[in-house]
């Protein structure tokens, strides 16, 4: 309680006279360099990703001969890159909202004109013929024209529907089951809790794709072979460890006091889970749902192996089939199918982008 006299500590400035102006200009330079370096780096590393996708899209909308055409790619890049830079500049230079919108509008207008002139004439929708003409190969090349209808060619909408069904059902189950399990793991004390979490990690170390034959046998024995449901359940089991891990991280971050509050407000733990905790992990559910959906959407090995009687076309197999090169590939159509295949994932992804970034692992800080 007794304050001791603090030891002396001199505060006389030991530094020599400071040249504030040069410090300021150095700082200015450093700031600019930093920004330039960061953006240059990020642009440089992102181009290798953007470019192929962009190529896919340009081919899908421009290829005519069935042979990949790259001139259009470079021409459209010549439009798109300056446009992006323009948008950035507009965003950076604008001092207020009006200027911002004005800048955007100007850049956009120039972009539209330039695009129409440079790329427009090459664009067409012909490669998307597969959407309305299942036997598009015969139409495109009038090769097997006379035998049309002898055997159904796979219909892309059929494949699309199957894929949506598989991915959607799988997502619904994974999200439900993982939420339940992750909540329990995160918020209940029970014997074996730690070993449960450990086994989740261990499960992740199982090479699922090499277990296809045992799975095939097992599905057969329990009568789920050759059913969509069987495939979905296998996919679910495969995705569960990851989903539980991620969901658990989100549950860990939910404040305890609102759950406590719900309990004293008369909810059981189950009711509190549904009405109070679950809404707090919406972001987690979205993130997990997106990843799971993509996983189901792209699946092909399981679908191919476990569905033996049903018409089991999925988008992945359809994509395979379209690019089967024994008879020659039509790159335009393949790209168009690719674009079509990509669209649902992209839509989903754009809708959920900002939630995906909130994924963390476990409630561990630091």
């Amino acid at each position: 309680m007794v304050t001791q006299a603090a030891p002396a500590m001199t505060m006389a400035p030991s530094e020599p006279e400071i040249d504030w102006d040069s410090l300021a200009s150095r700082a200015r330079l450093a700031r600019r360099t930093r920004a330039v370096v960061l953006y240059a780096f990020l642009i440089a590393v992102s181009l290798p990703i953007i470019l192929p996708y962009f190529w896919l899209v340009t081919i899908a909308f421009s290829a005519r001969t069935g042979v990949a055409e790259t001139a259009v790619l470079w021409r459209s890049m010549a439009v798109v890159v300056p446009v992006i830079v323009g948008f950035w500049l507009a965003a950076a230079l604008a001092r207020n909202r009006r200027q911002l919108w004005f800048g955007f509008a100007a850049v956009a207008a120039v972009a539209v004109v330039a695009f129409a002139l440079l790329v427009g004439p090459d664009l067409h929708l012909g490669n998307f013929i597969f959407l309305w003409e299942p036997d598009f190969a015969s139409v495109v090349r009038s090769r097997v024209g006379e035998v049309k209808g002898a055997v159904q060619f796979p219909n892309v909408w059929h494949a699309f529907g199957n894929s949506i069904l598989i991915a959607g059902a799988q997502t619904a189950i994974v999200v439900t089951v993982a939420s339940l399990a992750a909540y329990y793991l995160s918020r209940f004390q029970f014997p074996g809790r730690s070993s449960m979490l450990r086994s989740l990690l261990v499960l992740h170390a199982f090479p699922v794709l090499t277990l296809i034959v045992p799975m095939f046998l097992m599905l057969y024995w329990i009568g789920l072979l050759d059913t969509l449901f069987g495939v979905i359940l296998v996919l679910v089991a495969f995705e569960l460890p990851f989903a539980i891990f991620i969901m658990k991280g989100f549950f860990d971050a939910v404040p305890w006091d609102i759950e406590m509050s719900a309990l004293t407000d008369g909810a059981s733990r189950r009711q509190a889970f549904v009405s109070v905790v679950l809404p707090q992990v919406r972001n987690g559910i979205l993130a997990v749902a997106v990843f799971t959906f993509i996983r189901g959407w792209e699946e092909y090995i399981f679908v191919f192996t476990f569905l033996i009687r049903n018409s089991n076309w999925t988008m992945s197999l359809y994509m395979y089939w379209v690019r089967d090169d024994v008879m020659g590939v039509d790159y335009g159509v393949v790209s168009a199918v690719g674009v079509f295949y990509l669209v649902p994932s992209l839509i989903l992804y754009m809708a959920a982008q900002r939630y995906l970034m909130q994924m963390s692992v476990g409630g561990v800080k630091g």
Partner: protein
Amino acid sequence: QETVKLELWSRQDPSGPLRAGNVVKAAERLNKELEAEGSPKRVEVVVRESPAKGFDDDALQLLKVFGIGEGPDMFIAAHEWICAFQEDGFVLKLDDYIAKYPQHFGTIFPSLWSSAKCPDGTYAIPQDAEARMFFYNKQLLREAGYDDAFIDSMPERTLSGDLTMDEVLDIAKQVVEKTKAQYGVLHRPNKGPDYIMAFNAYGNDFVDPKTGNLLLERDKLAAAFGWFERGVKEGVIPANNTAMEFDALRKEFYTGNAAFWMYGIWDLGSVAFPTYGLPQDEEAFFKDWGWIPGPAAEKGGSPVSLTHPIVYVIAADTKEPELAVRLLGHASAADLNTDHAVTTTHLGIKPEQLEDPRYAEAWPLARATELLKITKFLPNNAQFGELNGIIYAGIQGVESGRLSAQEAADFVIEEASSALEDVIVK
């Protein structure tokens, strides 16, 4: 009236939609016949589409499906796989039925039947055939200094055993050196039958005629791999042939950037004409393009062509074997088979088809049929599919410089002996 549903397992294959399509059509004919006979039965064909990529994947999947007793009544397969099914008793022996229905099967080329045989009998019905060859670009050869006489005589010289595998490399080398063409010889970039021609040329038949077991002869293997090795060394076969896209290879050849292209006759109808605009007129075509069968290894040796028939097979446990046979018999009718042949540039199975004007009009078919004389099949051994995978890996190893020819032969023998059963090594 009683409807019999017969399931047909068919790979969804753009190169031959009528393989299944003809069976569907055949049902109508069979039903009329049954009606005429006064039989109460009617047949309905249910096609089980398989999305497998390639006949090998398809066969493995189908074997599993048979393994659990869920097999179809009939299926379409590449001929070399039938003994794998026969071995486990999945497929129906057909000798008696074939004898019973000469109206359907009597005229099928006898040589094709051998592709449908396993050691103890016939287990399949040939559906089509084709011919594999070395296509070549006459313009490039001319540019490289070969005269028309030489060029035009190449097919005959090959047939007579005068033109050898090594000469092909030589010609290709001249082309690569003297013209702006980049490649000499190109071949398929995945597992398949064509390159087996080269192995055949060097005396590899892969089956021991006495036991029917797989046979590997180290020296002959090494010799065949040696051809590929030399090709790469001479700059004629690209070291990355197996890494290229199928279509890219075709493009190189059909746009005049390669001297030879080792592939099959249907490539004309499916790619060369429609995609690259090669002249469809016979004369115009042969002015600038040509083909030879697989040449002999040495002068005076025998040339080879390879055909790779696709076959119809009937499951051993089908409830209606009789109907299935009759159904496939109708599906093998000359007119239906010709539909398939002319639309996909495959060879027919019966001499009657040669008279069909449509068939005659499709001159590549007529011309390729000539090769049937010297044609060989892949061995109908249950394990050949797997062996072929190993051989393909060997080629990849040799071409990419990872193995020497000798090492490749050793590799094939070692892999095959450990992975396969009853392999005879010499």
